[in-house]
C-alpha cells in the first residue's frame, strides 16, 4: 500500500529536491538540487536516514498538508511557523504526523528556503538520476495544491521528537571565496573594493542565482565584456553588465560570458542561499588550501550531525493527543548512532 502526504494548500515555489544531478554539465545541465544542501543533511540526520532522499523545498513560505497515514517529518532550513493540528511545533526537529493530522507551515521567520522531510523520503519520477525539479530547464514542475506526494518505505528506526542544534546561517555575514579562473581580469583596486564592500542581497534572485546590491560605482574588469564564454559553476560570482555581482547557485547556466571575480566555497554557499532581500553579505578571499580545509571540516560536521541530536523537550500540556505519542525513548534498535 502506498503512503502519501496530501498538499491541501501549496505556497508558491514548492519543489521536490534531492542532491541534484551531477554529471550532466557536459550536456549543458547544471546540477541543481536542494538550494541549501546542508538542510538536506540535517533532515536526514533528524530522521536517521540517507541524505539522498528527496525533501520538499519551500521558497519563503510553506502551505498546508495532511497525512494520509502515520508518518514522521523533520523541518529544516529557514525557520518557518509550523503547527500540527493547531499546536506550534519546533523547527530543526523531527515530529510524528499521525494519519489525518494537519501540518500548517507559514512564512519564513528568517532565511529563504525551508525544508519538509518525511521518513522514507518523497517518491516521484526519477529523471536523469534525480527527483529534483530543475526550474530553469523546465525539468519537472512545482508542487501545486491538491497534489498527492507519495512517500517511500521507512527503513530507519522510527524515532521522533529529536532536536538538532543549528549554527545560524540565516542572517548573512562573511562568506569565504577563492580566486578563480577570471579573478585576474580584475585589477587590485577592484579586488580590494570587492572585499571591503558591504553588499546586500537584492530582491532579484532565484534558484539560478542572486543579485547583490551596494553603494558606489559598479565593478568592472580589464577584459571588458569581450571574453570568450567559459565554464560556469555554482558559487561563481559573475560581474554582469551593470557592474553588480551576481552569485550563481545550483541551477545556474553551465557556460557564461560575463567575467567572474571569485567563487564561493561550497560549504559557505548556504549563507548566500538563505540570505533574504536586504541581508548584508561580505566576501573574504582565502587560499585554496584554507578552502579545502574548510570543506574537510564541513564534511566532518555533516557526518557528525546524528550525534548532535538532542531529545525535544515538550510541555505535556501542549500535547493534545498525548496518548498517541510513544513516550518511552530508546525503543529502537539502538544502533542508529553507529550507522552513517
Amino acid at each position, binding site marked *: 500500500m502506498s503512503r502519501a502526504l496530501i498538499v491541501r494548500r501549496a505556497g508558491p515555489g514548492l519543489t521536490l529536491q534531492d542532491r541534484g544531478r551531477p554529471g550532466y554539465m*557536459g550536456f*549543458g545541465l547544471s546540477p541543481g538540487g536542494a538550494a541549501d544542501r546542508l538542510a538536506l543533511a540535517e533532515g536526514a540526520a533528524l530522521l536517521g536516514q540517507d541524505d539522498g532522499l528527496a525533501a520538499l523545498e519551500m521558497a519563503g513560505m510553506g502551505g498546508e498538508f495532511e497525512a494520509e497515514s502515520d508518518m514522521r517529518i523533520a523541518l529544516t532550513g529557514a525557520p518557518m511557523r509550523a503547527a500540527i493540528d493547531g499546536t506550534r511545533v519546533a523547527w530543526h526537529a523531527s515530529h510524528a504526523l499521525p494519519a489525518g493530522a494537519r501540518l500548517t507551515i507559514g512564512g519564513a521567520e528568517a532565511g529563504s528556503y525551508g525544508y519538509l522531510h518525511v521518513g522514507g523520503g518523497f517518491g516521484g519520477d526519477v529523471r536523469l538520476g534525480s527527483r529534483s525539479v530543475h526550474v530553469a*530547464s523546465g525539468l519537472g514542475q512545482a508542487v501545486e495544491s491538491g497534489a498527492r506526494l507519495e512517500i517511500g518505505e521507512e527503513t530507519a528506526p522510527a524515532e521522533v521528537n529529536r532536536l538538532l542544534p543549528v549554527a545560524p546561517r540565516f542572517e548573512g555575514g562573511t562568506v569565504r571565496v*577563492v580566486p578563480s579562473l577570471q579573478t585576474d581580469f580584475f585589477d587590485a583596486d577592484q579586488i580590494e573594493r570587492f572585499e571591503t564592500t558591504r553588499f546586500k542581497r537584492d530582491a532579484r534572485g532565484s534558484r539560478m542565482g542572486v543579485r547583490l546590491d551596494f553603494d558606489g560605482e559598479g565593478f568592472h574588469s580589464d577584459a571588458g565584456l569581450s571574453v570568450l564564454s*567559459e*565554464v560556469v559553476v555554482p558559487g561563481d560570482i559573475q560581474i554582469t553588465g551593470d557592474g553588480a555581482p551576481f552569485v550563481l547557485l545550483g541551477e545556474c547556466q553551465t*557556460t557564461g560570458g560575463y567575467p567572474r571575480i571569485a*567563487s564561493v*566555497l561550497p560549504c559557505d554557499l548556504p549563507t548566500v542561499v538563505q540570505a533574504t532581500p536586504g541581508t548584508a553579505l561580505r566576501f573574504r578571499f582565502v587560499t585554496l588550501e584554507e578552502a579545502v580545509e574548510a570543506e574537510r571540516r564541513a564534511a566532518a560536521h555533516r557526518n557528525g550531525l546524528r550525534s548532535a541530536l538532542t531529545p525535544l523537550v515538550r510541555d505535556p500540556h501542549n500535547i493534545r493527543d498525548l496518548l498517541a505519542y510513544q513516550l518511552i525513548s530508546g525503543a529502537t534498535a539502538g544502533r542508529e548512532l553507529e550507522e552513517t
Partner: protein
Amino acid sequence: MSDTGTERQEAASDWPKIRTVGVDGMLVSFGDRLSEPANRAALAFRAALDRAAPEGVEETSTSLVSAYVRFNPVHRDHAGLRADLDALVQERDWYEADLPQGRREWRIPTVFGTDLAPQLDEAAEAAGMTAEEAIASISETVVRVQTIGFAPGQPYLGELAPEWDIPRQKALTERIPEGALAVAIRQLVLFSVSTPTGWRHVGQTGFRLFRPEAETPFVLRPGDAVRFEPVSRERFEAMKDDPDGGARAKELT
C-alpha cells in the same frame, strides 16, 4: 593557411594552460579565443581524460576551447590531479587532434525572418547584407557543434563567414523561444529553453534539443555538423507535431 599557423604559434607559447575553477574544479584551456584547432583540442583532450579517468575525477565537460574537471579535493589534493592533467597534456599535440568519432550531419528546417524570428533584418544590416543574402549565407554554411552549454542540450555552432563577426546587442531580449536560432560573433546558438539573451533572433526551428523523458535526452553532440535549411512558414507549421521539427540526421563517421 597562414591564419592557422599564427594561432598555432601563439598556442605553443602560453597554452595549454591549467587553472583552478572554484574549490573543486580544474580547467585545461587551449587558447583564450575561439579557433578550430583549440576547439578540436578541447574535445579530444576531454575524450582522452574520460578514458584515462584519473583518480578522484567526478565529472568532465568541455566549453569552446577548454576541458573541465570536477573532483573531490577532500579526497584528492590539487597538486596530484594537476600532475595527472599535466602528464596528459604532454602526451601529444592536442591541436592536431581529429574531430570526435560518431559524428552526424543534421539538416534542420528553419523559418528565417517573419514575425517568428523578428531580428533577421537587424542582424543582416549589422553584417552588411540584405535579408536574402543573410539567409543564403547562414543556410549555405555547414556549421559544427563546438560545445554544448549554457542550457540543457544547447549547442554553440560555428563558424560563420567573417561578415558575421557582429557583437551581442547591448540590451537583452527579454525572452527568446525554445527552438530559436540566434547569431553573434560568427556563431549561432540554437536555444533549448526559453530564456533572456543578448543574441539576435534570426530563425525559428521546431527542433527540441532537450527531451528529459526520452532515452536520449540531449540530441546534439559536440562535433556534429548542422545545416539550417530555409522553409516556408506553412511547411514549418505542418511539421509542428514532430519533435525533430522535420530535422534529419545521417552518420558522418
